[in-house]
């Protein structure tokens, strides 16, 4: 095995693209090193992307935020502007692991590890986040929900690296929220989870909505029908009931030691409902 730390993204892409053997990208290592130790992956080459300039920065741009692929969750939690604009994305990133893991883990690693239960992913999908991908044939920007292909698999091609996550600038009256269910208060994997992102009109009615569920299917679910239920409403009781019902119905979960299909369906609805209420309040709705 070899370890390299390229100093430019082109170098990193070039090395990955030309390596004949199995190569792995290293960000925070909190999935990769665990998988290597468990013998699940045996890369011949490790490409540590943390020395690539810009990948460690969070930039506030005219369009919104650009979060470099090597930024650990702890740093996201310390960024006041980001927390104010996207509290749901930040709270989801902050739920990953312990304080020790927070010092290392990245939302891009969380996305590319492609666990159906990855915490930051439903929040990013609800937020309409985009991934900037650099590869042998250049740069492309795609919606975050198109990155995971199934448990442990992504749609990235050989040599491709996610360089950054983009979040839009917030209009007035906007809010997002993320909730997961775990049997403990800390350090556990989501049994099921929900992210909701809303913008409101001047009168406090929902103008746009995005609802995403985690651990409810092989990949994150963007539930468009749930968004349609919310638009135009002020989150009255009947709307929230319908939201919960639509979300429960959209789930295609598995039965495992963490939860049964029935339990996951039910809780997905409850969490979507609660996350919607929090997002609504954060958007200034009453």
């Amino acid at each position, binding site marked *: *095995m*070899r*370890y390299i*730390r390229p100093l430019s993204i082109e170098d990193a892409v070039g090395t990955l693209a030309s390596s004949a053997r199995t190569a792995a990208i*290293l960000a*925070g*290592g*909190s999935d990769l*090193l*665990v998988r*290597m*130790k*468990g013998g699940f992956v045996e890369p011949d080459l*490790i490409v*540590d992307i*943390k020395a690539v300039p810009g990948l460690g920065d969070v930039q506030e741009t005219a369009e919104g935020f650009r979060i470099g692929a090597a930024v*650990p969750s*702890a740093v996201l939690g310390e960024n006041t502007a980001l927390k104010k604009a996207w509290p749901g994305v930040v709270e989801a990133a902050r739920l990953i*692991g*312990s*304080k*020790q*893991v927070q*010092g*290392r883990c990245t939302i891009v690693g969380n996305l590319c590890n492609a666990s159906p239960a990855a915490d930051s992913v439903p929040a990013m999908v609800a937020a309409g986040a985009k991934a900037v991908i650099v590869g042998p044939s250049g740069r492309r920007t795609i919606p975050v929900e198109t990155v995971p292909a199934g448990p442990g698999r992504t749609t990235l091609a050989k040599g491709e690296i996610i360089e950054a996550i983009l979040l839009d600038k917030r209009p007035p009256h906007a809010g997002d929220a993320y909730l997961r269910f775990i049997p403990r208060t*800390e*350090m556990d994997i989501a049994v099921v989870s929900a992210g909701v992102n809303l913008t409101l009109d001047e009168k406090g009615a929902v103008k746009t909505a995005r609802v995403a569920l985690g651990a409810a299917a092989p990949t994150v679910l963007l539930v468009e029908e749930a968004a349609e239920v919310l638009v135009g409403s002020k989150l009255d009781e009947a709307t929230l009931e319908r939201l919960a019902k639509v979300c429960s119905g959209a789930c295609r979960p598995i039965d495992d030691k963490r939860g049964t299909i029935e339990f996951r369906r039910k809780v997905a609805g409850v969490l979507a409902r609660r996350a919607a209420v929090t997002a609504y309040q954060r958007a200034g709705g009453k």
Partner: protein
Amino acid sequence: MAGVAVSTTINGDSVEYLCQPDETLLEVLRDRLGLTGAKEGCGTGDCGACSVILDGRLVCSCLVLGAEAEGRQVETVEGMAHGEQLHPLQQKFLEHAALQCGICTPGFLIAAKDLLAKNPSPTEEEIRFGLAGNLCRCTGYDKIVRAVQDAANMMRGA
């Protein structure tokens, strides 16, 4: 496997070592440098016994490659005491009997040091959340929390 030559700073001292590319920082500290304070409880990021501070951030050294320490600052439990003079946290852990077998202790000490550096007067809840990445099978945590509270008071000069 070709070795990786690494220059780093550990507890303020410049250190150079050669390690294998898949060797963890924990293995380097313990097996190459004789710094056996950090312990391996799980090797998978769950127990915190291997905690060290890397460039001011608390991390599990079992989930960091030795090669990644190049040009960075590492703080381990060995850097906490000054000669015979124990760090207030170490002293309070002793006074409060905040350890039994002791395998978790270096990790708790480093995690508590990091916690107090960022939050000098944490509430009990903040201490419990702040140390949630460190597991202890012996003490039941209460004595650890008391020791950290007491050390925080001492360090604030209260």
